[in-house]
């Protein structure tokens, strides 16, 4: 049996290359987002001549307002990643707390929390955000919060089931019998042993949140004062970029969204897979 696992570990290592690709792409975008102010050629709000195709002074041309698209794209990375990270942090923190509490204490608490989770899972999330965004003034922070507060149920489910798996493990029982507090057990015994499910889930939630932000912005319900990739796509569509075949306008933000989501998926899945292999679940 041990040899079997050894072999699987080898397989896991060969799979890690995918992880490396994902991390490289992701770090590249993270760098862009952080260094946007230094590396972008212009301020994205400055106006040049509109509808210029790509040339030597504007690598990706300009849009209807005459903004440099490359600069918009670089600054857009910042907005999109902040929404993704922010929403995912909120969702993961909520999901982990709810998941651990219901998985660890079980009983009535578990029944109630899981009932709430089920209700949340039934909510059609994008339409709800659309309605809320339409009712309130669209705001960048509001969208981030909304996504965060709607995206936790799947994390809670996953965390709950992993917690339930190890809550009866003998090392938990033995620290419990030694008299450690529930707080210590949850933070110091359970959490380190389930972070292998939390981290990939966190990555996948970032991807999902970014994608949702793009969808919402694309529908014109985003924050007009923030240039996110979804917002850029929205303008390209509204102002006739697609009809006039100005590919330099609508293609780059779309590709960037795909690339970041893809890289996060790669990281998330390969982490998940690695863990499954080490546990011998596959």
């Amino acid at each position, binding site marked *: *049996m041990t*040899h*079997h696992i*050894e*072999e699987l570990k*080898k397989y896991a290592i060969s799979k890690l290359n995918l992880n490396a690709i994902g991390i490289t792409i992701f770090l590249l975008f993270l760098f862009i987002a952080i260094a946007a102010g230094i590396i972008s050629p212009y301020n994205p709000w400055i106006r040049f001549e509109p509808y210029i195709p790509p040339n030597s002074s504007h690598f990706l041309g300009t849009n209807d307002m005459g903004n440099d698209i490359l600069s918009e794209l670089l600054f857009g990375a910042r907005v999109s990643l902040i929404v993704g990270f922010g929403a995912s942090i909120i969702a993961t923190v909520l999901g982990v707390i709810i998941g651990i509490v219901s998985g660890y204490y079980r009983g009535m608490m578990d029944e109630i929390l899981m009932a709430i989770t089920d209700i949340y899972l039934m909510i059609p999330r994008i339409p709800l955000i659309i309605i809320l965004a339409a009712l309130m003034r669209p705001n960048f922070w509001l969208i981030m919060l909304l996504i965060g507060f709607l995206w936790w149920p799947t994390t809670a489910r996953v965390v709950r089931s992993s917690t339930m798996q190890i809550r009866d493990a003998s090392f938990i029982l033995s620290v419990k019998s030694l008299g450690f507090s529930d707080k210590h057990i949850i933070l110091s015994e359970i959490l380190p042993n389930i972070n292998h499910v939390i981290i990939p889930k966190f990555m996948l939630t970032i991807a999902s949140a970014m994608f949702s932000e793009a969808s919402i912005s694309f529908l014109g319900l985003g924050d007009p004062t923030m240039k996110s990739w979804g917002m850029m796509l929205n303008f390209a569509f509204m102002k006739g970029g697609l009809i006039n075949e100005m590919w330099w306008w609508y293609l780059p933000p779309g590709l960037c969204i795909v690339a970041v989501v893809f890289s996060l998926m790669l990281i998330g899945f390969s982490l998940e897979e690695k863990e499954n292999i080490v546990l011998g679940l596959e």
Partner: protein
Amino acid sequence: MKILEIQDLNVKFTTPIGEVYAVNNASFSLNANETLALVGETGCGKSVIANTIIRLLPQNAEISGNIFYKGNNLLKMSDREMEKTRQQEIAIIFQNPTLSLNPLYKIGDQISEPLLVHKKINKKEAFTKTKKLLKTMGFQNPSKFTGMYPHQLSGGMNQRVLLSISLTLNPSIIIADEPTKGLDNELVRDIIEEFKTVNKINNSSLLLITHDLSIARELSDRIIIMYSGDIVEITKTESFFKNPLHPYSKILLNSLPERGFNPPKGNSPSMVNIPKGCKFHPRCPHKKKICSEKTPPIYSIDEGDVRCYLFQ
């Protein structure tokens, strides 16, 4: 008649922490219709021998020596030939009976599958054969059990089903790797009975790998004792329990419940930090100067084979 002969088998693993010599110069043979017990502590290399015989070792293993099965060297066979041998000639039973069965298929399907695939007989015939087999394995009402799923049966029954599966193709050798580990007494006794039945109805040989001396005593004709990768003693089971030869065998027997749990001194060496010479010498009450210098060869005496300078 020797059905399986292992000559000078060495297995070495290359790991990040160094080279691990899991089996050193192991030579023994399995006779037709015999039960041979391979006994040793966790990590002494007994399961490695089993996995070497059916060639299921990981890639970082380096094997030398010969394993002859009916005159053919198993280590030199092509993968295809080996697959065929594994399916039809040598069967292996793993530790956990309930986990070794697929929970999604009915018992009857799982037992008849090898017949359908390898013997190419039709489904009806295969099922008749399955029922017959279940009956000999002590299931009173086989037609009822063929339609059940593994989780509906107890652990002991599942072990019987597993045995039935391994018997469907009438293998010449059955290798049982710790068939009783982690089970409670009632089940262990059940399983011992099952193996006894198998011995009676089937003329296959059994290689029983276990750390439990009492099971070896119940079932085996001969016994092999391993210590830290070395075979230290091969004797008839009866004489082993009366008169063990190797000093390690003696301390092992003394730690048995019926001899009063006499705890031995010291611990078995870890696989990366093995003493020079006889591996048992740091714990041995009879150690001489030569013991720490050179590994003793196997000496054959009347009672059996033993790797110790006392029998020079």
